[in-house]
């Protein structure tokens, strides 16, 4: 089996990630900006005050898709709700298009919200309105005349591929179709920003892919900035140009998605990536994988990411020769993030502590990252 060679052959033209900024156009104006934002929910009877967010500083460049990933309770829902003023920051500022959202009065905030679309995990469609009437709702609210509403809703239903379902009620639509209605509704007032609150978490993988592709499309065609929150690394990988990892109410890591995938620095990021890799492992390995070594004879499963010029190096054979350890390849694949390919290889090596740390050291000396996914 010569997977490393195949892998190297598949990615020979990789740009070095450290040189990646050259490929990114001049820094775009940031359309959403968090400036040292904090959010504390005051104490209530029997509950202590909750510090949902602390010291959040984050920029979403115009036209970008930025994904915020975190576990439930990490504060990501609060974060996204600060952007359209459903929550007010207790410290710092949230700017959308240079407007300080927290400082607006109710009337001004309502007006501002029309330029910020939002889609939801559970779609939040009105059960007693047809697809057409659901998309029309934000326009009715904005006081758009009837005739114009019709002229604007139909192209939107077209855009999301639901022209033939215009008179259907949500109960007659599949989950994916409901989210398409949700997206059309969010776009009705021609917003500059789209907020996506776990929009694919209630959908199956295939439908998720379709919805993410649609988000990509509206992002590109309408130059719409997208801020999405998710707990799935696969979603980030599929659509996000940039990613911020949130844990315990703080952003622990952020950057270009490619960078973060290739060189995760924070343990939380690493565990999200490990979970993503583990999902695609052969079932035989995945079933046996345990977080801790059980005895000295365990094999450690490592995830090694190949980027840049190292993609061509015979890293594994070098490590194997250098340390005289057996390196078994479990899986090798070329992955792609935001159009840039990078290689991921999963190997098993002897799991005793000295050998394992020697292998990791050797890999890291070659400027690659290696993480332990578990033991088999």
């Amino acid at each position, binding site marked *: 089996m010569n997977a490393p060679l195949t892998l190297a052959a598949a990615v020979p033209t990789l740009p070095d990630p450290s040189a990646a900024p050259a490929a990114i156009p001049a820094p775009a104006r940031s359309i959403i900006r968090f400036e040292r934002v904090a959010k504390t929910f005051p104490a209530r009877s029997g509950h202590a005050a909750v510090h949902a967010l602390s010291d959040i500083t984050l920029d979403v460049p115009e036209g970008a898709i930025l994904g915020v990933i975190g576990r439930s309770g990490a504060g990501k829902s609060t974060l996204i709700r600060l952007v*359209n003023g459903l929550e007010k920051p207790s410290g710092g500022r949230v700017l959308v298009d240079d407007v300080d959202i927290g400082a607006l009065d109710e009337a001004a905030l*309502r007006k501002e919200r029309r330029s910020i679309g939002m889609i939801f995990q559970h779609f939040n469609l009105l059960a*007693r309105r047809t697809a057409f009437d659901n998309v029309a709702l934000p326009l009715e609210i904005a006081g758009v005349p009837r005739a114009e509403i019709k002229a604007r809703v139909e192209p939107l239903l077209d855009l999301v591929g639901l022209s033939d379902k215009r008179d259907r009620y949500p109960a007659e639509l599949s989950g994916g179709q409901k989210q398409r209605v949700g997206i059309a509704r969010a776009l009705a007032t021609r917003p500059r920003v789209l907020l996506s609150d776990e929009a694919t978490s209630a959908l199956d993988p295939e439908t998720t892919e379709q919805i993410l592709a649609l988000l990509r499309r509206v992002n590109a065609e309408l130059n719409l900035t997208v801020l999405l929150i998710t707990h799935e690394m696969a979603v980030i990988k599929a659509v996000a140009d940039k990613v911020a990892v949130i844990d315990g109410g703080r952003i622990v890591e952020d950057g270009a998605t490619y960078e973060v995938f290739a060189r995760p620095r924070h343990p939380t990021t690493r565990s999200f990536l490990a979970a993503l890799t583990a999902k695609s492992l052969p079932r035989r390995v995945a079933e046996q994988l345990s977080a801790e070594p059980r005895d000295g004879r365990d094999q450690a499963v490592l995830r090694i990411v190949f980027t840049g010029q190292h993609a061509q190096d015979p890293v594994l054979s070098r490590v194997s020769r250098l340390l005289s350890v057996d390196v078994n390849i479990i899986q090798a694949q070329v992955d792609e993030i935001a159009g840039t390919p990078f290689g991921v290889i999963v190997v098993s090596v002897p799991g005793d502590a000295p050998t394992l740390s020697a292998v990791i050291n050797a890999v890291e000396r070659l400027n690659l990252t290696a993480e332990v996914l578990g033991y088999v």
Partner: protein
Amino acid sequence: MFDITFGLLPPTIVDLIIDATQQTLYMVAVSGALGTLIGLPLGVFLATSRAGELFAAPWLNQSLGLVVNAARSTPFIILVVAIIPFTRLVAGTSIGTSAAIVPLTVAAAPFIARLIEAAIREVDQGLVEAARAMGASPIQIVAKVLLPEALPAITLALTLAAVSLLGYSAMVGAVGGGGLGDLGIRFGYQRFMPEVMAAVVLVLILLVQAVQTLGDRLARRLDKRSRG
């Protein structure tokens, strides 16, 4: 005229039953309509005015809640006599079918308010959040989201209220309100005419069946949740 009772009841009694049915329907319809007129906005307010809600006014919410509870815990027959001065003020008299509408309305309004409150609270809060995110004002949220989405539940609530009013209306005989209940008591019970009592009960059963069936059907037609 064709005798629908097949000779079981004398024609004079049949006429009495027809009159009483009309009185009952009149009292229930008018007090139901007036009760809804008062109870609907009250119910919407109760459902949207706790702390952190659309029209947050926790103090007023609690006070109104107390008044509603007090009105609902007063036995109807006591309410009828207790508010006679008020009835006289509103209707000009405290006796008769039209006067009976006053206590019926006073009893129906808080009952309907609580039913409406429950129906509105059933609406998914996610829809309210979505509407807020669209830039809807609290009034728009009530008009375009809460009331339309709760309409099937509101229909069932008003059906229940109408059936309850049919029962209440039997008690207004105490103030000369007339109606089926009054007829049943005066003829069926006090004059020992069990056949009149049976006829009255039968008509009431038919009325309740009709109202409930109609309400159920309408609610089902309005409900778009259970298709395929």
